[in-house]
């Protein structure tokens, strides 16, 4: 592999956006995984598919409608869970399938799209434009700042909601804020791995990092490192061998997970 590929604008944009998304998904995803919300990202992503179809039909930039739809569905899912005593996994399942269903129906009504719907299903990181890259970096910056500022509140209400409440934290507000940020993160990440593989970025690096038995900050850093490694190597390898980046990124991430399990079962790493 020659260094020449780093001089291509599309490759630079892909790597920069990819790294930003990797960091974002690790950080937001860790809170979701620890709250047993692992599939939440998946649910929002699938519902955003409905939003994408809506945008394509209406002639609006599909990611904008996807942002709208996914944020609304993220709030609905949380409401349903809190108000009507529907379990988390069931409400995720409802949202997940209805999102795809809405998308399919809209595509059907419009008689199919000329735009390649596959780029939304499986990502199109090598096609990311300058404005997309700026948007991704901006959003990553904002969400990271919010998490840094409210770090203790996020961590405490994830660790134990009741105790966080007793210590005076407005747990409900924090929960909605997290869900809101997860919605933004998911739609932003669609460009990297697509609707179908997003939960991989949310879940796999975090589950892997948690196994190393470290504290919260170190776990976050480990997770980011695994995620960045998978994304960067995934983008480069997929370009050189002309395979899909999304699949390669997720498989690399899974590879690190499997290696970690291997190391643990041999007993080098203690629980």
């Amino acid at each position, binding site marked *: 592999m020659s260094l020449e590929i780093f001089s291509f604008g599309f490759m630079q944009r892909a790597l920069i956006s990819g790294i930003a998304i990797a960091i974002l998904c690790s950080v937001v995803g860790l809170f979701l995984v*620890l709250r047993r919300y692992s599939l939440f990202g998946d649910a929002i992503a699938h519902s955003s598919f409905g939003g994408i179809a809506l945008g394509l039909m209406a002639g609006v930039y599909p990611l904008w409608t996807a942002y709208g739809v996914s944020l609304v569905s993220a709030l609905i899912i949380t409401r349903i869970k809190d108000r009507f005593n529907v379990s988390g996994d069931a409400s995720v399942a409802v949202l997940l399938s209805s999102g795809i269903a809405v998308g399919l129906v809209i595509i059907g009504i419009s008689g199919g799209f000329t735009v390649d719907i596959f780029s939304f299903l499986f990502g199109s990181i090598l096609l990311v434009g300058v404005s997309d890259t700026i948007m991704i970096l901006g959003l990553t910056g904002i969400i990271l700042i919010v998490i840094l500022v409210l770090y203790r509140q996020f961590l405490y209400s994830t*660790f134990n909601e009741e105790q*966080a409440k007793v210590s*005076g934290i407005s747990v409900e507000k924090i929960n909605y804020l997290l869900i809101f940020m997860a919605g933004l993160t998911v739609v932003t990440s669609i460009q990297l791995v697509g609707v179908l593989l997003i939960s991989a970025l949310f879940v796999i690096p975090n589950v892997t990092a948690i196994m190393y038995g470290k504290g*919260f900050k170190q776990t976050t850093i480990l997770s980011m490192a695994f995620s960045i490694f998978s994304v960067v190597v995934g983008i480069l390898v997929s370009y050189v061998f002309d395979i899909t980046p999304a699949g390669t990124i997720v498989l690399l991430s899974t590879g690190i997970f499997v290696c970690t399990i291997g190391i643990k079962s041999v007993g080098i790493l203690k629980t």
Partner: protein
Amino acid sequence: MLKVIEIEHLTVEYPGVKALDDVSFSVNEGDFLGIIGPNGAGKSTLFASMLGLNTKYKGTIKFFGKDIRKSREYLKLIGYVPQKPVFEKNFPATVNDVVNMGLRKKYHEKKIDEILQQLWIHELGNRRIGELSVGQQQRVFIAKALVNNPKLLILDEPVTGIDQHSIDLFYSILKDLNSKQKITIIWSSHDLDAVNKLANHVACLNRTLFFHGESDDFFDNDELVKQYSEASMQEHMHHH
């Protein structure tokens, strides 16, 4: 004497059950109140109401003279140690992380070190919370409750899973906090002997309050102690 908590006519009803019935008492600054009562006596409901977790109650609860319904600010002056610390077993948080969660101000390494030392868990700072014994975890949660210098410490005593050494240590820590650091303590317990040794006030709760006063007045009154024991025995039988 300044009143830390005043509870007036506190009644909590769950569908079909009165969990608390017209309970009134107050706690002065510097008091060490032991609340005793059988399982299901309403101790947890009482704590949940005081801590703002249960707001569906009749009556009033005042903290330093202010009705707690008016503002949640009072919670900043309370340290709470739950009966069973519930968390994901493999939660990636060290002891330092957990204590830091309680700290309202900026991370203060020296402050955290100091408290961990005071509670004999200094050497555990970098261990994950899930790796510790229940007794050690309990001390970590006390540390978390103490890190903001609370005026009032509320403790729900864990019933199971703690070894005798940890229990003794726990009691001596409570004693010091109250006598040396002048922290007001409300502590629910099943252990009459320990309450007798540590607390200077006793409240006997079994849905209603049937005694509240100086602990000597309770423990010197054989009739009361017998009544309490019978009541808790009955409750015990009732549960089985």
